[in-house]
């Protein structure tokens, strides 16, 4: 069975959650994450390891696309770049904010 995978990490400098794109760069936009087939995965992972060694990224891991792992609550929250509940803010009484559920 062929396995497709995506690769994710954090930028070393600011910690932001990022995904490896199809062109083996990185993006904070989950929707442009490259989906790497078995054939391309080694090359993609090699680039990720290199980027980690070159102190660009940290905490690299891969996610198998199986309809579950990449859809887990954890990965959805990472992809949304924030919590599912609104934190309080200076811009007004927090009670008027709508929770992003």
């Amino acid at each position: 069975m062929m396995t497709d995978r995506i690769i994710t990490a954090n930028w070393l400098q600011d910690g932001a959650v990022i995904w490896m794109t199809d062109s083996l760069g990185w993006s904070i936009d989950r929707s442009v994450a490259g989906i790497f087939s078995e054939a391309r995965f080694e090359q993609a992972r090699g680039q990720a390891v290199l980027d980690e060694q070159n102190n660009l990224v940290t905490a690299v891991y891969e996610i198998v696309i199986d309809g579950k792992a990449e859809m887990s609550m954890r990965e959805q929250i990472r992809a949304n770049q924030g919590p599912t509940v609104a934190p309080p803010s200076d811009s007004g009484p927090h009670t008027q904010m709508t929770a992003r559920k």
Partner: protein
Amino acid sequence: MYVYDNIDRTFLADRSRQFRDQVARRLSGALREDEFKPLRLQNGLYLQLHAYMLRVAIPYGVLSGDQMRGLAGVARDFDRGFGHFTTRQNIQFNWIKLVDAPDILDRLAGFDMHAVQTSGNCIRNVTSDPLAGATPDEVEHAHGWSEIIRQWSTLHPEFAFLPRKFKIAVSAGAEDRAATGFHDIGLRIVKSRSGEVGFRVLVGGGQGRTPRVAQQLTPFLPKRNLLSYLEAIMRVYNAAGRRDNIYKARIKILVEAMGIDAFRDAVDAEWVTIRDSAVELPDRERDRILGHFARPTLGEPEIAEDKIRNQRETSRGFDRWMRHNILPHYDPGYANVTISLKQINRPPGDASAAEMEAIADLADTFGQGEIRVTYSQNLIIPHVKRSMLPELYKSLSTIGLGGGEDGLISDMICCPGLDYCNLANARSLPLADRIFEHFSDLGMRDEIGRLRLNISGCINACGHHHAADIGILGVNKKGVEHYQISLGGRAGEDAAVGSILGPSFTEDAVPAAIATLVDVYLHHRQRDENFAATVTRLGAAPFKRALYPNA
């Protein structure tokens, strides 16, 4: 409160410079992540779900108004404009950039704060009674001794690489408001029959996957021997604590494996070698530190009770706030005021920068310029004149913080859960919100009365679910968030670990399940019995039957 001197400030400046260099070396690649990680952790910097998270130490939960304003500035200038107060009386910022971390530590040092030892396998921030020095029920001010322990344990070279993290709590009240029974070492300041003040020492408490209530190591330790005795405990743990298995590395496992008597023998054998030696704090230094914790000079209280009574009759909100959020002060003309950080649509313990600044101003105006962070993730302004309570309530209400929820079902302790944390299995914040919404009726919350409901998003138990009347633990069941419910835990004098009632529930089913437990209580309670007392009297069986009728 303790005020830094030049030695303290030089120390922090050095530490900050060191970390700046470490970060620069990490960014240049001179330090690899595995080399850098223990260094950043010992400065409170984690890599969490969304970004780096910085945990700033608030020693025993005490902040000056200026420090609170300083933290608000950090939240606004380096983060997303809010902070999260934790059960360990610290504050966390969730969106920190590694490149900014050195500047943040410099900023913190500028108002005498830091993030030293808020993570890593070392002695963590000492926690204590948030009412210390302001309550009628204490033997002595617990914060002076907390400060002594803080100074002793900060960068203690022998205890920088312990088998695992180590938490010490100090409490001096008749009521234990620091959960000493759930700490690696719990210190209760007590008075002996002859009137001498010393410490009752507990050891081996903790939560996580192996929850244990601490056991008594000694009923009375003379004050002058505190540091040598602590040092002896730490040495036994450092030498014999397990380092091969992270899940068995805490002192609670060692104490259990050895048995409390053998552990005590080992501590005593170590102690005789250092007791009354140079390890003990010199009297002059002790007096210097304790001198910072003298009672404030309070003005003559004004006649207030008529004014308060009238106000309570006309304002239901003020009446609730008075009933739940006002804690007794040693001077009957004064009060300690809880500011509840529990509301619908507010993650428990979160406060925006503007709110933090406003609270600092209120502490300056109505108190003594001091704010306390509580174990239950609220804030306290101590030393408020009772005659000023109506005005303080009005000011708090203006900024949306006039809620009277202290100790109620709505006063949930809650970890950040999967919304922020790398370790979590399930979210805790939206669940807290849904439970609050389920009990949105004020009258209902008042009717239920005191009930501690705590939520943890994983077995590490940062939300203290083991120590709650009703504890909720998030688990991941085949990829779906589920929640296990336990009953009968408590954190105070009679500390106990709650017991799991049965199979877990989906998020949707939890609020109704909690309501079922509450209904059993309301149905069976006698007179003024609170939830905990009813559970003690009846046991878990009727609650279990109601929750799992088909079991």
